[in-house]
């Protein structure tokens, strides 16, 4: 097991370097540079001003030199400074946006699990029942509904017409003067719509997936055996079948680790939530190379770690994989 782990970890290093190298080259190949965007179409920006900015950002060096400089800083865990006018450390810019992104994604994942797993189980246990069919229709509608449209509709209904929920943002005007319980309630109200909407699309895939796994397990011999022993249906399903049906879910959870820090631009823009999606999008549009690379590195590391976690935990729960039988 430990040898396996070490091997996996070692193989990540060339992979990461490859990912960063390709990203670095591609983003620099894209037309436009941060200097262009700050000086183009600006009559007051002379060629001298451009050259000055380029030198400040080190963009006058050959590309491979720029990459090695970046890589050597990265190895010291120095993400560098943003090229945007604020010139702040990239690490700060990412860290201030992580908490809210993670919070919303974790809540939404929890909601998906809490709803999709039961739906999947019931649908599998009673295939083609009315419940199965209606949830199928419902989740596919959810799957097909554009998030931004649904979000705006909910805002209009719950926010403007009923006035129950806030429309956007994550706190009210005077939130800093509230008592603790009031503040918590205010924050909760602000999170209801974003979490619901972001979970909505994921429900479909997950409940289908759960239903499929469950159906497969229910068809296995040992379930027939359990039933033959005279165990109650409840017990058969929840004790014997569910454990095995949940195993593939672990893989899915492992794969969703990078998703926890990657926001969505459309979603964050609509709810005015300053998350990672916005940061990444804006930095790409402004060709803010350090921020783009910083976000990509974190994303790549998390993806690889998530994969590893999924594999390892799978091995832990499934003896067949561990012993190679």
């Amino acid at each position, binding site marked *: 097991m430990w040898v396996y782990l070490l091997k996996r970890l070692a193989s990540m290093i060339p992979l990461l370097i490859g990912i960063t190298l390709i990203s670095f080259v591609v983003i620099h190949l894209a037309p436009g540079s941060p200097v262009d965007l700050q000086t183009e179409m600006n009559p007051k920006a002379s060629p001298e001003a451009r050259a000055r900015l380029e030198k400040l950002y080190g963009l006058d060096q050959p590309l491979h030199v720029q990459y090695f400089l970046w890589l050597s800083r990265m190895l010291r865990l120095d993400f560098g400074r943003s090229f945007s006018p604020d010139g702040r450390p990239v690490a700060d810019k990412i860290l201030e946006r992580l908490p809210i992104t993670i919070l919303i994604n974790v809540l939404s994942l929890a909601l998906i699990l809490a709803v999709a797993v039961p739906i999947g189980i019931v649908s599998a246990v009673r295939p083609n029942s009315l419940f199965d069919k209606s949830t199928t229709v419902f989740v596919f509608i959810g799957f097909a509904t554009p998030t931004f449209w649904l979000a705006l509709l909910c805002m209009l209904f719950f926010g403007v017409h009923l006035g129950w929920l806030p429309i956007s943002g994550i706190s009210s005007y005077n939130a800093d003067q509230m008592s603790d319980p009031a503040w918590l309630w205010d924050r909760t109200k602000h999170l209801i719509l974003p979490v619901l909407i972001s979970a909505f699309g994921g429900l479909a895939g997950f409940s289908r997936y759960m239903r499929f796994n469950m159906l497969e397990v229910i068809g296995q011999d040992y379930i027939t055996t359990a039933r033959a022993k005279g165990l109650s249906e409840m017990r058969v399903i929840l004790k014997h079948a569910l454990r095995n049906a949940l195993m593939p879910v672990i893989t899915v959870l492992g794969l969703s680790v990078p998703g926890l820090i990657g926001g969505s631009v459309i979603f964050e823009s609509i709810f005015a939530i*300053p998350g990672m999606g916005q940061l990444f999008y804006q930095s790409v549009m402004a060709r803010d190379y350090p921020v783009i690379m910083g976000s990509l590195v974190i994303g790549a590391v998390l993806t690889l770690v998530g994969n590893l976690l999924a594999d390892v935990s799978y091995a832990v729960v499934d003896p067949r994989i561990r012993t190679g039988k």
Partner: protein
Amino acid sequence: MNIRYRIARLVLPALVVLIFLSCGQKEEASEPSVQNPATQESSPPEPAKAVGEPAYGDALVEGSIGDASNLIPMLSSDSSSHAIAGLVYNGLVKYDKDINLVGDLAEKWNISEDGTVIDFHLRKGVKWHDGSPFTAEDALFTYKVMIDPKTPTAYADDFLQVQKAELIDSYTMRVTYKRPFAPALASWGMGVAPKHLLEGKDITQSPLVRDPVGTGPYLFERWITGREIVLRANPNYFEGRPYISESKTRIIPDSATMFLELEAGGIDLMGLTPIQYTRQTVSDQWKKRFNKYSYLASAYTYLGYNLEDSKFKDKRVRQAISYAVNKQELIDGVLLGLGEAASGPFKPGTWPYNPDVKPYAYNPERAKELLREAGWEDTDGDGLLDKDGEPFRFTILTNQGNESRQKTGVIIQFSLKAIGIEVQVRTVEWAAFLKEFIDKKKFEAVILGWTIPPDPDLFDVWHSSKTRPSELNFVSYRNEEVDRLIEKSRYTFDREVRKECLYKIQEILAEDQPYTFLYVPQALVAVSSRIRGIEPAPLGIAYNRIKWYVPADQQKYKIAF
């Protein structure tokens, strides 16, 4: 970001010709520049006033599509940052509501006979927000930072024209230029930075980037990245304490969400699109809760031709296209009637604008005639004009994300089809658009817009020396007489002389049609009806922000004292 015009109290000369960057589905000119002051006083509450009387207190919440980036005025070029910095800082001069330069931190100035020396006499008794006195040292320091090669500013050029800047005494600064330079005066609208907090430090790493200290009507309170920026009224402001005590800018990147927030009362002020203005804000309910304002924006949209392209070398062809494009149709279709036809690079009703130069009238017959004279005829009967066996086809490029420019392109495509010209409209992402097409002059025609700066300097966009890659005369317009007139108008302070030159230039441009000037849109704003004291003027509505107020009986937010 999509062009958001924020014609803030202090319009940096830098904003002179900022093209409308668009992001998202914002319409041009839908975003007048109004900034948010935030206020919170530490003085005793006012005695109750009669109903409807000006009163201190309350807050104004404004929506902004983009977050600010850097609150030191010289270091940022985005409109969100300027809007906030414009409330925190003052320049030496500013524009009044009729777009005339008046003193701000400078009480008055004298210009020498030969126009090369300007003496600024500064206000006495002004204090920085941290209580330190403001003196001429600060103004001189700001100049030195501007010309320092280590300062990453895009605005150094006007200041590099200065030969010498010196202090006569603590409240007088003398600036000497090599020759009279008309844009010089306006360049001193740049926010003055506090010497005592910045001297000897790396300005890019200064805490003032996110925690500014200025002399302006509002003090900085807090900035939560991507969420909100809060300011509060400066009780000691030299023009008097602002009535509205707190001002908050909420960052709401999606314009549909912002509109819902406005409806729900979450924000008090936003720029509207023509659709929102004409269709979605007309119920009685709306009229009770909001006031709407519209005024001509300081910007125009144009169709520019690559004059190095053989098709567009002949001015008769350009004139023909100008006759063939129905501007009223564009204004009705794209702006829902909320705009005016443009005839040249100035805003109708301002002093440089020549009222005798009329926009080209819609006249497709005249267009065909001109094209025939230029040798374009349909010889093979395919419905397309041709010349030397080549059919008349070209592509109009515009930037992605600006819906009104795309619609404009489609309407022009349709109009030109009617006279036998086939047009393709193509949209390209902004950065690529600049780098790959504009800079390399790899385009046939473009639809873009310019903001119209308060100081009418045409040098960068129209002078033949500005046709190199990545300069602004990318259509390669070269006209010796225009060059001469631009220079003449630039190196004098005599408004009559300038006016004469600029009038003449407009006549020449109308004849040459290097651009087909399309329209000047209206800026459209909705403001909560509890906010009083707003008086639209040529400059917009933000100029008298400190005089806006909410009557005591209508105040919505209780600001803690």
